[in-house]
């Protein structure tokens, strides 16, 4: 999965910051952090919920330690994103992967619907999806992984991955209702 970073600095700029950081330049690492944190934290919010801040800090601490293992074939933003995704999956894996509990979340989804702004509504609706459905949804819809990849990584069957994705989309559809832009 090679999603291009959405943050502003170009790949050569980010890679140059990363090389400086490998040489021990803390200021360069801080600039790398500031250029990439929106995307990392957005992923962390979706995967780790209220633990997103702590998870993000752990990801950057791990990135500083492991940066020397970045070979430069992929851009550092892509490398960092992979590191973040794996760290977040490990974190979620430690909590276990729940398979049930959709219905009690419908109330929370309906509450999220009342907020103004379709974009915020959608973020909140994702945030309150049942965890199993949310993981599969994020991995498939936002990270571009196949059901086979998700099944292997998360430890569920490919069929479960498919049904969780469908469930997540149905819940989001129900939550967003009129908020969906045609």
């Amino acid at each position, binding site marked *: 999965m090679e999603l291009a970073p*959405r*943050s502003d600095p170009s790949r050569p700029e980010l890679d140059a910051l990363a090389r400086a950081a490998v*040489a*021990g*330049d*803390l*200021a360069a*690492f*801080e600039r790398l*952090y*500031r250029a990439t*944190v*929106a*995307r990392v*934290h*957005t992923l962390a*919010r979706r995967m780790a919920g209220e633990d*997103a*801040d702590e998870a*993000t*800090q*752990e990801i*950057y*601490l791990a990135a*500083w*330690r*492991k*940066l*020397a*293992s970045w070979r430069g074939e992929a851009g550092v933003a892509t490398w960092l994103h992979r590191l973040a995704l794996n760290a977040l999956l490990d974190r979620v894996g430690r909590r276990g992967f729940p398979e049930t509990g959709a219905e009690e979340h419908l109330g929370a989804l309906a509450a999220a619907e009342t907020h103004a702004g*379709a*974009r915020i509504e*959608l*973020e909140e609706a*994702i945030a309150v999806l049942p965890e199993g459905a949310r993981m599969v949804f994020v991995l*498939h*819809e*936002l990270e571009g992984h196949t*059901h086979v990849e998700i099944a292997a990584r998360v430890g569920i069957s490919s069929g479960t991955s*498919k*049904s969780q*994705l*469908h469930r997540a*989309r149905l819940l*989001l*559809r129900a939550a*967003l209702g009129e908020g*969906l*832009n*045609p």
Partner: protein
Amino acid sequence: MSVPDPWLERLSEYVDEDLAPSERAACEAHLAGCEPCRELLDDLRRVQREVRALPARPPARDLWPGIERGLTRVVPRSRWLLAFAAGVLVTLGALLAYRFLASRGTGSELVARAGEDYLLLLHEPAGFGNGLDQAQHAAIVARYGRWAADLGARCTGEELAPAGLELRPGAGAAVPIPDGPRVGGFFLLAVRDREEALALARTCPHLEQGGWIELRRIAHGDPQPNK
């Protein structure tokens, strides 16, 4: 609908082009005659479009100060590691009950393992690191950290704060350790044998920084004085 529509549960697979060609044709034939399924299909595609258009947002508070503080440590602390650090400071005897973790960072799980464990005590000459600013210090710590990280789960360690206390029998109050050579940190290595421990220790950046390393096998209750 009087009977459950089986395609309602499979439209995500249609959206994602995950259906076999024959199933896809059957689904399309069904869609042509089923208004509810067509509506759901449109909504599923809208959800997908909307979600993929969501912008990335930074955290509500600045997380950098916490990260910067963390960078001055070699590896993340765990309860186990804190217990170990305390053991090093007071007495190596506290180690006897431990077997090293199979992987670093899991915190509490103790795993028996073939091979040996070695402690690398990082000795520093007097004045070691004097005159370094915070960034230079962090760069050196990071170099040590990368050396440890490259060894993966086999290596863990910590930097020790420069100030400390000495407790001597019968001396009464604990006194600050005097200026001069001291232990500045430690690594723990899980290795096959002493030769591997020695080979790895030779690559430790501490030597290039001007420090020296004391290599000690963890006895695990079996002292074997010659090893």
